């Protein structure tokens, strides 16, 4: 049986990830942001503030999982694709191989998803330890997977479009950072002014935050899942086109 084309692309990134995983500093760097938010907001407000009748910490943990999975999946893929394309030239080895653009894309996306899921797992474990009421649900799993997928695909797009590694930071500052703070990670969206709300609902992380806090798949959950999948499909085909049209 022939090995699917995405396997070597994923394998290369996975070997990198596995090597970094055993470096203690790497795990700390993946964890430090969410843990600071966890302690600063969660423990500071957790016992005093209740949202929809639940402890703030229980509200916050799914938001941190959504934010962290977005950050890690996106940053890993955007950085890897950009650096390997512009500086290390290892991406050209994929381009010159007899595999499809979809195979390259799927390999990179899966690698980003592994990174995003790993970072999420650490926060989930922390959540179970610090907040006994915290629980997982099917909508949580759907949201997490869809979020990792679409932000990994966005990472490929940014990695392919940017002309220097510094430029990827610009995309992070203007797209990823505002989403992290305004899309319902730290506070419920119903408290946001109506005019801002219509903009915020355009961002995918908003729908991840809605879906990830659901206990069952109600109408709102299905709508958010649909939006996330729509973003995923659009980013996938955009990324595929960029790889297919690669030209130095």
């Amino acid at each position: 049986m022939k090995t699917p084309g995405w396997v070597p692309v994923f394998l290369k990134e996975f070997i990198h990830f596995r090597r970094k995983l055993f470096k203690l500093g790497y795990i700390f760097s993946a964890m430090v942001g969410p843990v600071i938010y966890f302690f600063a907001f969660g423990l500071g407000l957790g016992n005093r503030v209740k949202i929809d009748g639940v402890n703030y910490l229980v509200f916050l943990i799914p938001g941190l999982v959504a934010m962290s999975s977005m950050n890690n999946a996106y940053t890993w893929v955007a950085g890897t694709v950009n650096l390997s394309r512009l500086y290390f030239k290892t991406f050209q080895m994929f381009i010159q191989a007899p595999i499809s653009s979809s195979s390259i894309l799927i390999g990179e996306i899966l690698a980003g998803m592994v990174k995003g899921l790993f970072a999420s797992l650490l926060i989930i474990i922390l959540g179970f330890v610090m907040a006994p009421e915290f629980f997982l649900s099917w909508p949580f799993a759907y949201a997490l997977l869809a979020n990792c997928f679409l932000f990994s695909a966005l990472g490929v797009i940014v990695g392919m479009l940017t002309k220097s590694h510094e430029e990827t930071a610009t995309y992070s500052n203007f797209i990823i950072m505002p989403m992290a703070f305004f899309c319902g990670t730290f506070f419920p969206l119903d408290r946001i002014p109506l005019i801002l709300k219509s903009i915020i609902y355009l961002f995918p992380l908003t729908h991840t935050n809605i879906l990830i806090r659901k206990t069952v798949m109600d109408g709102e959950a299905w709508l958010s899942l649909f939006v996330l999948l729509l973003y995923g499909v659009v980013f996938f085909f955009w990324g595929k086109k960029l790889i297919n049209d690669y030209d130095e």
Partner: protein
Amino acid sequence: MIVLEGITKKYGHLYAVDGVSLTIERGEVFGLLGPNGAGKSTTIRMLTTLTRPDGGKASIGHFDIVKDRDKVRNIIGVVPQENNLDRELTARENLIIYALLHRVPDWRERIASSLDLVGLLERQDSIVAEFSGGMQRRLLLARALLANPAVLFLDEPSIGLDPQIRRQMWDIVRNSAINGRTVVITTHYIEEAEALCHRVGILNRGRLIALDTPARLKETVGNYVVEHIDAEGRLIQHFCRTREEARSCAARQPFAVTVREANLEDVFVKLTGERIE
């Protein structure tokens, strides 16, 4: 067989490759010679499907380099000018990934034999970042040969190699061509082009200015060169067809002269008035 028909690549208003046409036969070792910026690497990047031509067309084994990119990628191996090994991976890991990308059958055995061929079998589990520049070039060659490509592209393969390793690499390339493989080399090392290539194309400012065997190219300018430094410190060269003609020319010079056999750089100087390096 590789066929280029008026292939052109522009960057802005600058023609990196300007209407190059040539044919390379199966089993031929073909050299593209020229100074930096002549268009050698751009030509290789177009033939290896990294860069799309703006005009003309080219095919490798009857596969068009634009329309049949996947089929072209199936039959080529590339040693790029810029080292694109993954330096954080081991030599063996680099080759495993390449073998899976190119769906190499019996890849375990082929990886071992490729590493053995370039003398790196014992270092297969070392991280590539720990390798010297020369070892990394050899690993690039092992990787390019791994999928047993019908056409091998070598873009400045000898950069960073000491003379002994360079000659080992030439032997590998020569043996590789004996088995019917077509080899295309870009180089600005004159002795490399003369030692390896059946035919040479000389590029200057994107244009193919000469194309023939090294011997015939040298014949066109004269097989012998009489050179001396004039009163103003300039190198003056006289090209002569025969040894006797060279002797007679040397005898006429009022300066101390050197008589030597012509090389491909002399051909380039005669054609362009400039030096390759």
